[in-house]
């Protein structure tokens, strides 16, 4: 029993770390531009698929990963520059439709550049399962959790200690005031999209050795990442991480103890249940209407 529970918790933690990274991507873009970027899942796909191609081209794993993350960041910045920036000031629904159009476009491009098959990225360090308290865990899961923790730590330092990080935060609090302080607000938006896309790509590369990757892998991951971001309270970095972990663990427990057929529905049942009682998510600020 205990071993089984440990197993579910470990699996949940791995998946949850991935959801957390995707959710952080949502939060960063939302903070910077108040856009819900429904193409976030496609960054995950781009990261995984580019890595697959570069490894096939003969590059070492590390180089392939670095280039794939850069490629995804470039896609994110292109999205901001060519689609979001020209439509600034449009209504939120219009912006949502634009990002959804972008996600369809990117998925279409992926089927052209690659194909509709599943692809594998080799594990970072072997496939031999590790025993922990009666449960087994893949070495790749340790990589997922470890790198996610490292990224969260680095992000914290970036937003708390560096000038650029603080400038992005300032932009999200009050663009007008930030502009007046000499911050290049447009450039900060541009950077946020790049950063968020890079995070998504890292998530896609980390999980690919476990779940494989394909042209449409971003759809569900994107939706669940959005659910995690909302669960934690949209725009809160800590909330996004906790939201991701909670969803991942709940999903794994639910699939194990309740119904594996409804595994993908569990995240959405939880988010509905939470929103019914806490309309601003678990850690979101209570909104006040200004009349």
């Amino acid at each position, binding site marked *: 029993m205990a071993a089984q529970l440990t197993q579910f918790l470990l699996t949940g933690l791995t998946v949850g770390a991935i959801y957390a990274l995707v959710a952080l991507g949502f939060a960063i873009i939302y903070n910077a531009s108040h856009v819900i970027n429904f193409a976030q899942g496609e960054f995950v796909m781009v990261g995984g698929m580019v890595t697959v191609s570069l490894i096939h081209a003969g590059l070492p794993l590390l180089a392939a990963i670095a280039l794939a993350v850069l490629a995804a960041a470039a896609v994110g910045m292109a999205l901001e520059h060519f689609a979001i920036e020209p439509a600034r000031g*449009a209504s939120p629904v219009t912006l949502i439709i*634009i990002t959804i159009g972008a996600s*369809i*476009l990117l998925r*279409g*491009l992926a089927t052209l550049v690659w194909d509709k098959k599943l692809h594998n990225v080799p594990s970072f360090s072997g496939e031999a399962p590790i025993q922990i308290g009666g449960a087994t865990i893949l070495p790749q899961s340790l990589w997922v959790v470890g790198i996610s923790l490292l990224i969260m730590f680095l992000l914290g330092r970036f937003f708390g200690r560096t000038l650029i990080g603080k400038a992005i935060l300032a932009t999200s609090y009050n663009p007008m005031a930030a502009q007046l302080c000499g911050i290049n607000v447009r450039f900060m938006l541009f950077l946020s999209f790049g950063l968020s896309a890079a995070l998504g790509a890292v998530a896609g590369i980390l999980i690919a050795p476990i779940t494989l990757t394909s042209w449409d892998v971003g759809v569900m991951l994107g939706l669940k990442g959005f*659910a995690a971001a909302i669960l934690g309270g949209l725009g809160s970095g800590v909330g996004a991480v906790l939201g991701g972990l909670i969803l991942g663990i709940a999903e794994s427990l639910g699939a194990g103890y309740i119904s594996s057929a409804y595994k993908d529905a569990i995240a959405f*049942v939880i988010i*509905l249940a939470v*929103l019914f009682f806490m309309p601003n998510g678990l850690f979101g600020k209570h909104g006040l209407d200004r009349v």
Partner: protein
Amino acid sequence: MKWMTPRRGGLALLLVLVLALPLVLVNNYWYEVAIQIGLNAVVCVGLNLLIGYAGQISLGHAGFFGLGAYGSAILSSHYGLPAALAIVLTNVGVALLALLVGRPILRLKGNYLAMATLGMGVIISIAIVTEDKLTGGPDGMSVVPLALFGQPLTGELLWYWLVAFTLVAAVALALNLIDSPIGRALRALNGSEVGASVCGIDATRAKVGIFVISAVFASFAGSLMAHYSGFITPGKASFFHSIELVAMVVFGGMSSTFGAVIGAAALTLLPQLLTVLKEYEMVVFGAVMMLTMIFFPRGFLPSLMLLLARIRK
């Protein structure tokens, strides 16, 4: 009192269009496309009441469409109910469900509302795929045809008139609703919810009411679709279809009933025209969606009206 208001003029134009369309529909294929447009337009007219007038987004309306389709399909095909009765029961059921979930969901605002409606839609869609004993799972299920007085309703022309009548009725209903006290209450809500409440408008009640109406529009169109095509697949209940529906409303122009019809027509026709592009279909569809929204953020009809007004000056 002028009898030719823009509203009546628009309705008359729609009526003429619907009556004249069979003249140019050269074969069954185009009838099929026209019927699809009509059904999508019914959903969009309802969805537009919610998004365009009440200002409440829904990213889960395909769920209601799917419930309408599968509900009447299961009741009529598995339980042997007459199709017409199955449709009525299903739509009453969907109305009750919308009433039940509408209250807690519509308390939410903006992106949280988007998430909740999206979640509801995804749950319905997963349930349809998973309960394969009832629904046939991912492969879909066949549906018995609609029958009236023992006579099965089949044939493209008959269905064309049935759908055309439904669409005109839906548009007339929506136009009436918009100019009724409820419609004005909704527009006030869209402007400022607090302001509207101060004026004595029961915000939750108005929002839930319009949510139920738009859900029933969607589920009724779903029921008709199921009995018309004789075969349904879970794709029609998917998140992607929800997005397509919202895209139709936004494309045609939010808070314009006729815009919703135009949007439904445009985005139903587009994939038909794009099939010649084969593997480029998705790329072009995505690009068209992005470009229209970037260059006409208000949607097609309002942008056109603005242009006409500028020319007249």
